[in-house]
């Protein structure tokens, strides 16, 4: 608890009678974002989630399938019925990029990720993820909330619900979207679902006021604002005095203090002009095509440094070309999106390491699904939920690990398949949340992120 009722009443001039009642009943103001102790040993304090919206082709990035060259133009055999989302499937299409082994672990990485390739020994790569739906909407929901159906709280909401946040002057769960657009489904992707509104993701914007409605009216000076707040508190006081036992009223009064402080803290937290040139260079800030994502990655580090619990960055937005959704021109599409994010991601890892934060920050990288080894529209790839790659790095993660494998086409998870529930259980576990016990009662059920499923992916734990 950040502040006691005594302090609060002292600050805000609550009545003496109020104090007596409050002490009598042991009541505390409720701050839903107050930090809560992990229920199991925590390996990380914060999560940075990188969501490559549109779906990354694993075959062209983290999961080499050199035999596809041999089989180019042929159909897959023995894999059962191949369902494509856009219809009109083609034959097998080899990757236009080559792979090389890197690091001590010797993990093969595509030439699309030259900078991240230097960090293969820092990441745990899961090559056998699978999801339920090959359509963006449901798949985004599953990756963000566990279920393909809308209406459930997102991972970020569950994590802040479980742990609160370390910084009360900033939202506990922050979301960055791409300058070309947000992911489809929109804000329900970072919704608190049925959890209280305190746990919803807050979108940070790159222009104007970083948070909607953060800035006071342009013509109101800070002094005027203080005068305004003082008058508000004075007028609230009498009402509160009539209801001395009502902590909700004093919490609301206090929320204005918080909001006021957020006005100065939020802009500072994302102000990367305060970073050194060396740091900015790490992220590729100021250089195309890395500038935009690089800024976001750097802001994410600053936020995590300030105690924000969960930061999610969406790379890619809108439909088709501006996102990772390479239904055609795979080369152009993934060429661009990888170039935009490769250096900043490597920079983020380097920067976190140099600040001693890498071991307490969990980075999770994924799309909503992978892409098919066969062609679509001549030189693109359609959606593939049956097998794809994700990686994790940082707090509690065993670097240089590869878990599972897809079949020889890269079509379906074949060895040691991992469900999205398992990924979510692992994130919660690393954060010190017992994924089976963190529940919220709603419509007569004790809901949890992983429903009745899940299992921690122990292979990647350090």
């Amino acid at each position, binding site marked *: 608890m950040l502040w006691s009722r005594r302090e609060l009443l002292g600050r805000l001039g609550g009545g003496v009678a109020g104090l007596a009642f409050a002490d009598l009943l042991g009541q505390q103001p409720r701050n839903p974002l107050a930090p809560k102790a992990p229920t199991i040993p925590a390996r990380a304090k914060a999560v940075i989630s990188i969501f490559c919206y549109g779906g990354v082709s694993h075959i062209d990035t983290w999961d080499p399938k050199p035999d596809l060259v041999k089989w180019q133009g042929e159909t897959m055999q023995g894999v059962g019925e191949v369902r494509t989302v856009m219809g009109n499937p083609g034959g097998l299409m080899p990757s236009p990029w080559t792979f090389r082994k890197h690091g001590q672990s010797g993990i093969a990485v595509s030439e699309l990720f030259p900078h991240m390739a230097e960090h293969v020994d820092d990441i745990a790569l899961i090559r056998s993820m699978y999801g339920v739906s090959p359509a963006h909407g449901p798949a985004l929901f599953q990756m963000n909330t566990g279920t393909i159906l809308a209406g459930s709280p997102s991972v970020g909401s569950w994590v802040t619900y479980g742990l609160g946040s370390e910084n009360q002057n900033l939202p506990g769960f922050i979301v960055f979207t791409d300058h070309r657009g947000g992911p489809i489904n929109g804000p329900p992707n970072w919704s608190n679902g049925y959890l209280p509104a305190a746990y919803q993701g807050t979108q940070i914007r790159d222009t104007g006021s970083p948070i909607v409605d953060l800035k006071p009216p342009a013509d109101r000076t800070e002094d005027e604002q203080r005068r305004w707040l003082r008058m508000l508190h004075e007028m609230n006081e009498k009402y*509160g005095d009539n209801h001395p036992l009502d902590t909700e*009223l004093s919490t609301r009064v206090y929320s204005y203090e918080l909001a006021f402080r957020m006005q100065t803290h939020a802009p500072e937290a994302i102000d990367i002009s305060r970073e050194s040139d060396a740091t900015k260079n790490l992220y590729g800030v100021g250089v195309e095509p890395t500038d935009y994502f690089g800024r976001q990655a750097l802001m994410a580090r600053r936020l995590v440094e300030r105690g924000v619990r969960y930061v999610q960055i969406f790379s890619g937005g809108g439909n088709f070309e501006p996102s990772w959704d390479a239904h055609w021109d795979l080369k152009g599409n993934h060429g661009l999106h990888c170039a935009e994010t490769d250096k900043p991601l490597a920079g983020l890892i380097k920067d976190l390491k140099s600040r001693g934060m890498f071991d307490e920050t969990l980075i999770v990288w994924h799309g909503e699904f992978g892409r098919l080894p066969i062609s679509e529209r001549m030189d693109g790839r359609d959606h593939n939920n049956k097998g794809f790659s994700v990686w994790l790095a940082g707090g509690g993660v065993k670097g240089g690990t590869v878990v599972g494998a897809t079949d020889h086409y890269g079509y379906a998870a074949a060895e040691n398949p991992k469900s999205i529930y398992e990924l979510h259980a692992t994130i919660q576990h690393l954060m010190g949340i017992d994924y089976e016990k963190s529940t919220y009662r709603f419509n007569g059920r004790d809901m949890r992120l992983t429903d009745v499923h899940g299992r921690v992916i122990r292979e990647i734990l350090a």
Partner: protein
Amino acid sequence: MSPRKFGRRSIVSGVAVALVWGAAVALRAGAPQESALGQDPRSADQLAKDAYDIFKKSCIECHGPAKEGGLDLRTEEGLQKGGRNGKAVVAHKPMESLIYKAVMHDGDLWMPEDADKLPEASLRTIQLWIESGGSLATVPEAMGGAVVDLEDLRKRELRPITEEERNDWAYKAPVRHQVPTVSRAGWSSNPIDGFLLDAMTKKGLTPVGPADRRTLIRRVYLDVLGLPPTPAEVEAFVADRSADAWLRLVDRLLASPHYGERWARHWMDLVRYADSGGYEFDVDRPEMYRYRDYLINAFNTDKPYDLFVKEQLAGDEIAPESDEAMIATGFLRLGPEGGGNRLDAVDDLVSTTTLTFLGMTVGCARCHNHKFDPIPQMDYYRIQSIFYPTTAVEHALVPAHDVAAHRDATQKIETQLKPLRAKKTDIEQPYHQIIIDREIAKLPEYLQTAWHTPADKRTEGQRLNVRQIEDTLGLSSLRKLVREEHLIELMPGAVKAQHADVKAQIATLDRQKPRRLPTARAIGERGPEPQPVHFLHRGSPDAPGSAVTPGVLSVAHRGEWTFPAPPAGATSSWRRRGFAEWLVQKDNPLTARVMVNRLWQHHFGEGIVRTPSSFGKMGEAPSHPELLDWLAVEFVDRGWSMKAMHRLMLTSQAYQMASTDTSANYAIDPENRMFWRMPRVRLEAEVIRDHIMATSGTLNLTVGGPAMFPYIDPDLFEKSSNRNWDGLPDSDPATWRRSLYVFSKRSIRYPMFETFDQPNLINSIDRRNRTTIAPQALILMNNQMVLFQVGRFAERVRAEAGADPTQQVRHAVYLALGRPADALELQKGAEFIAGSSEGLTEFCHILFNLNEFLYRP
């Protein structure tokens, strides 16, 4: 298994196929080794397994336990036996096998019925499997094991209800308990007070005294209408010392058209009302508002709750000729669209219906018997079978002959359009070909090779790639690699003119198409005898059990509920009508209790059962079971009149108590479960917005009509996909309407509503969260809409109270809080106003942020 082993067979089958397909004779006969079976690396065993997987997925729902047409594809025995139409498979001869002809849509039988044709790969698998012998003998599941399993499973389908379970409070019919006699002055005339006071006395609690009149009128306005009283209304009530002043006020509010708006909004939370479909495309539903207006009207006209239930669930079966009843079935069209499959959509209907009307989480029994409540999984599927046959109907809100005339007019134009479109394609064709040839030359060699290989010589992969290339280079391809303007560029002048002329003719005709008829989103069925619905083990369509008949919640009903048979000429099964009739029949233990508890919940801040949609074990027990029973019985006895129940509750002494705390009571019952005082309740998102506009004097009180789009910061949505929100500026009076008229778009939420805990428009919500968070303060301090209204409020105060700061404070406080300002407020407020050039505006802004403004007293 190597292809060689099947070499001979494949020659035979190749010939057989060729004979039927005629045109392919030369190829097939000349190159038998290229027979499909020879090329496919799958063994016969694998083919059998793959075929069986297809049957399980796409066929077994009907040709399984249900044995439609006498055919059972679960077992080798059933397969070989065939069905009423004869043998299903003829070994090695796909073209003579009924199964293959049916899935190929070759002949009279087209399978699967009411679903898309199977994908090409499946058709091929079935063909090859028949060529390889057409037997399931190598599939263990099909060899008896499955039958035994299913028998075993079927035994597990039933879960009897014990007598003890039936005796749980929620499942016993409510009885009219004796009203306790109490002696406190004023507390003996309304039965509610008798029950409450009796319970308080037993716990050593004393009800707090009555609220003052200003508190009362503000409370009842915000509660019943969701709007604040005007100063004149406050003063009139304060001055009215007649004995029935309160009663008359209550009746006046219940007769207000704004009562219906307020209570419709509560209902909209339960039914997860939205004006769009959600998910990827989040398609707008511009007609959905008619259902919202139906709700407003139903509350305003005091539609009996039993009829209200029946119309929403089965309006089409009760009064198909009534637009109102058809619009009511929009209840079944509110779910999100675009995620999950049909079973998920039906699950959403089952869950929402049972939560809303029964206060039970039947949705929990989809995969297994409910873990805590006596809800057998069988109940789920029997209830599911009530909703499974439903289908969307766009109900035209015009007479039938107008619908026919509209259809004829449309068809007439379509007939004229057809040859014009063909002509346009003919003109374009040669130029399209030029572009195609150019693009082909750019492709990788293996694709060019595929393209140039004669169609009959292409491998399967080449065939797919060629088809893909053709599609990609077509004019309608999503990729837009080849566009109409590219072709036009290549056309000589004369051709260009001819092309333009045809296009113009098409456009003219398109414009002549009649405008869409006004419709309502409604529900119907395909006929009186729906497809069978099956019990699904573990909720999986791959493990169907018995076919089920419609049923009700077995713990809440002894024996079988008799569903009515649809009369001759009925277009639906009447299952929903039967279910609705069960819900509102006198012995139903839940329906009336659940609804009176909801009414109570909104008046008193919390329900008698504090988990209003969970009357089961996962919910809370009622704090006053006898009162709840009494109210439920009274509700039914008063003809399910909601207004009668409102009146009863509002005229109780309990409702008129103050909301002050007393430490003695607090020590015994800190959560006020015994209702020893009235709670302060933070206003809902919509009420805050309405209150702001009412206070500033801008609120437009027009009732009903299409939803409107107030301004939303484009940064919050514009960049996402192809969805949009054309928000009107805050200064546009069209946006100054009550909040329930704001378009509810599932992927673009109105930020103020979301932040102040409006539900997520996806789940049925029985009780809103009431959070207190900093972003709420940010909105009330800095949001443009709020600031605009603050400006209007200040103008109003200046116009009505003049330039004197003390008068301004007096008037502003009166407008915002419905009470005179006290001496200290007058003094400090006047100082504040005088202290800055924008003092009045800032003071007005403070009033919108006060706790007193934001809470119902």
